[in-house]
């Protein structure tokens, strides 16, 4: 009766019932208008569905009928179906073979519950981190007693990956930090005609604080995130389970090589950052107040006691340990879904940068108290 390229619903109100004349294609692409027609329909008498003119129906069509059939019956109205052919019947039986009952979604909790739950989880998290640390050290002692178990190749590979390949980005960051510090201080120092003190400024601030910190932040962003993602991916593909079953301990194979490699590399990177950062300062000093390179270096020898440089470099292994241990720990926390890799990688970088800064603050207070 109707053109069959879309779904139609004609609502005929009669004395004792509402006749719903369904026709056309009751399939997914065409159903939305019919669905809204039914939504606004508010019958007051029994409903009769005449489906004899439906040319094609799919599961969405059946579901639509069933949904409103139930809704009308729920209101206490009679809902009858006429003109269904055997194909409709078979499809209906397939889709509604069991008494299908809509399931209520699980309850969401109150904010107080969530707050308590999260706090509890965080406290437990500290416990699991300590357990991880403890297990790592037990295995470190065991490995040191059995030196043949040390993964030298792995350590060297990580030294290359976290050290040598990080040189360009560290050079760039340190150079720019040197430039920024020199530029800002020279403007102030010139007011007092004390340009020459730029050397002290650059020498001490870079070697003692800025170079170690910048290096640690770059390494945390670069290698820390890589550690978490590598171990997380291995966990997802069950490689770690495979290692355990073969008796290869993940701590000796994955954690310690990374920690040790980073602890070896970090002081070297800091030394490198010192040189490049001071060079950046030298370039600005020459450009802004015509202090030649040779004068700068001559002055630096007097102005920079060796202790500042040593303090800066000694911080390296501590920062490296924190970055490597936190990022490997986060890697082991990755669970079997793709989102958790991103989640824990972010967490690992944020945690390790925070810990590095906190550790630097402790160093700063301690060393000042010790009059160093």
């Amino acid at each position, binding site marked *: 009766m109707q053109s069959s390229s879309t779904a139609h619903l004609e609502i005929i109100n009669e004395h004792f019932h509402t006749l719903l004349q369904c026709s056309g294609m009751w*399939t*997914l*692409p065409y*159903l*939305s208008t019919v*669905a*809204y027609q039914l*939504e606004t329909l508010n019958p007051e008498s029994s409903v009769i569905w005449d489906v004899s003119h439906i040319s094609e129906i*799919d*599961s*969405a069509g*059946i*579901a*639509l009928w*069933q*949904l409103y059939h139930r809704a009308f019956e729920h209101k206490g109205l009679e809902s009858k179906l006429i003109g269904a052919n055997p194909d409709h019947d*078979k*499809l209906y039986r*397939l*889709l*509604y*073979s*069991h008494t*299908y*009952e*809509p*399931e209520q*979604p*699980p309850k969401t909790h109150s904010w107080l519950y969530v707050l308590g739950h999260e706090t509890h989880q965080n406290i437990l998290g500290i416990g699991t981190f300590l357990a991880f640390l403890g297990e790592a050290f037990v295995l470190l002692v065991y490995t040191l007693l059995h030196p043949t178990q040390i993964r030298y190749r792995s350590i060297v590979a990580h030294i290359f990956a976290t050290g040598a390949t990080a040189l360009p980005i560290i050079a760039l960051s340190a150079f720019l930090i040197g430039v920024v510090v020199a530029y800002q201080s020279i403007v102030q120092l010139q007011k007092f005609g004390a340009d020459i003190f730029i050397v002290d400024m650059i020498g001490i601030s870079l070697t003692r604080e800025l170079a170690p910190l910048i290096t640690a932040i770059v390494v945390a962003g670069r290698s820390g995130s890589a550690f978490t993602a590598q171990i997380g991916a291995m966990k997802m593909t069950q490689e770690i389970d495979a290692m355990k079953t073969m008796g290869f301990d993940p701590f000796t194979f994955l954690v310690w090589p990374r920690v040790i490699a980073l602890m070896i590399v970090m002081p070297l990177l800091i030394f490198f950052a010192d040189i490049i950062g001071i060079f950046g300062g030298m370039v600005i000093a020459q450009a802004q107040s015509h202090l030649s390179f040779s004068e700068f270096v001559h002055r630096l020898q007097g102005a920079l006691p060796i202790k500042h440089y040593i303090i800066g470099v000694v911080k390296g292994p501590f920062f490296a340990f924190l970055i490597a241990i936190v990022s490997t720990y986060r890697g082991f926390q990755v*669970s*079997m*879904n*793709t*989102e958790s890799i991103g989640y824990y990688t972010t967490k690992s970088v944020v945690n390790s940068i925070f810990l590095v800064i906190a550790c630097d603050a402790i160093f700063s207070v301690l060393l000042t108290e010790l009059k160093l």
Partner: protein
Amino acid sequence: MNSIIIEARDIVTAFGDMLIHDHINCSIRKNEIYALLGGSGSGKSTLLREMILLQHPKSGTLKVLGIDLNTITPLEAQNLRRQWGVLFQSGALYSSLTVGENIAMLYHEYTDLPPKLIDELVGIKIDLVGLPPHARFLYPSELSGGMVKRAALARALALDPKLLFLDEPTSGLDPLSSRQFDALIAQLRDLLGLTVVMVTHDLDTIHHIIDRFALLGEKKVIAEGTLNEVLQYNHPIIDYFFQRGSYGIKD
């Protein structure tokens, strides 16, 4: 009646120097359950991937639902993709969404049905594949292997496709679940008028629900047809694959 849904002519596929398909031909008819068979590395999954536009053959023509995949426009491809459902071997459910959201996503993207109806549809699809109702609120990581397959099938069936691609649908399922899965596929084919293309190794599946199949080996299609037709041929790979003479299919 038996119009051809998918037609592959002279397909050549190579990865670098390694030849996978050497002038392969096969055709899949409407409303049949068709299998691509072959040993590991025979290129059956690759052929399936070419049919669903994930990979392109080096040469040859491949027509799906009458459209030549060599000259397909992006718009036609998008239309074609709505007419098929694909079940990947590992399920490939989006792990950040619950099972219900995985299915509902297709309705939200491709239709403007009211939320109530989408909810109902998600419910019946989950029921249809034999998952318990609470499964819709679970994340893929909380499901067992068999449930992942079922959830992925529910998602593949979401838009009532006319064409269903299954990559090893019964691998990793226990024998009883496998037979139930087969029965479900056969029932869906009968009632929804589906055409099913699958890659499988399961001899029971081949025996019970497959109408026709192509056996791939030595970079060619060794035989194509019904099980009885293929068993007429004499070829070592056919003997090997169906374990003829031992405990497999008897002559």
